[in-house]
């Protein structure tokens, strides 16, 4: 039997979906994006997913990661499925067809595809050796 005197488990208790969403929101980074277009028809069933995602992206903290990134919401009335088009700085385009996705799915995928690029860049910068004052003088 396991002795009870060794520590295992975590002290914090996650509240499931909401803590997952909070984690993904903290990871959101707009640096590699040039423009994000949110298109939805408010009368379709699954428009509320895009509306919720829009609220995450329009937060000041997220927008401050790249003030030059354009965020645009387009309301259409042709019963088309809601989509999110992300245009990156390197002219690549990512289209999220959000009809059957949840907001968590979208944020996770966005972080996987886009926000992770920022970390890679920062890691490259960190890999440069830190020079001391005397080394810099030479």
């Amino acid at each position, binding site marked *: 039997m396991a002795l009870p005197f060794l520590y295992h488990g975590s002290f914090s208790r996650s509240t499931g979906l909401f803590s997952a969403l909070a984690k993904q929101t903290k990871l959101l980074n707009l640096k590699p994006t040039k423009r994000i277009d949110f298109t939805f028809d408010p009368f379709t069933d699954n428009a509320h997913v895009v*509306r919720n995602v*829009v609220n995450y992206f*329009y937060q000041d903290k997220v927008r401050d990661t790249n003030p030059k990134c354009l965020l645009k919401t387009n309301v259409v009335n042709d019963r088309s499925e809601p989509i999110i088009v992300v245009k990156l700085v390197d002219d690549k385009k990512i289209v999220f067809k959000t009809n059957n996705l949840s907001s968590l799915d979208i944020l996770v995928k966005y972080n996987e595809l886009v926000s992770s690029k920022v970390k890679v860049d920062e890691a490259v910068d960190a890999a440069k050796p830190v020079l001391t004052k005397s080394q810099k003088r030479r």
Partner: protein
Amino acid sequence: MSLTQVSRLLPMRNPIIMTVRTRTRAPNIKRPAVPHFTRAVVLELTKPIHKKKDEGVHPRENCMRKLRAIEGEMKQVNPYEQILANEFREKIENAKLVAIFHMLPTSEAGLFAARLQLIKMNMKYIKHNNTIMRLAFMGTKYEALLSLYKSTTCTFVGDEIAVAKLLKIQKKISSLVLLGGIVEGRFMSVQDLQRYANLPSLHTLQAQLVSILGTPAQQLSQNLSANQVELSSALSRYADDTKPEDDSKALPSS
């Protein structure tokens, strides 16, 4: 008051105070000393085994989903929310122009700036949570509006039917996204509102209607008099053709 009378009043219960002497430091609770293996085994074996609270209860009785569904049905309507819902429904019914916006996350200053723009059109800002919206519109003729009241939504209500102005202003407001509206009791999408804004004025439309209504009568009179008109025009042309020859012959003799 005598002692005996005072003792019959509210009795005071003095708490039992026990002084516990500890060593100079507080007792170590966070990192207890790991006991010897034998001691640990004995402690583990002699731990009391308590009965489970739900012993003998079938999991189907404990199903959280089922319990939550029952709780949802039993939930009573908050009377304050019901009052707010009724007031909101009245405002929507009496207003001539209602605009429903999706609220993007902004500061109070940003929201104030947006409200300021719309106050110029005498539009008042109303925001309630979606539960109140469901109470207000479920089962009424406004049930279709509920499809818009998801996520963060706010409403602007006014008596000025200035749809073109509204569409112009909402493009400048960055914190609100227009989802739809109600104009004189008619529920409209954004496309419908744009079409409404592009319509000509009521007088122009009335004049057009009058002309359309008059066209069959006009056409009938035209058709009836067509042959007569043709005959008279042909005769006048003939008269014009023959007249100059007679005049020139008549003049030299006089």
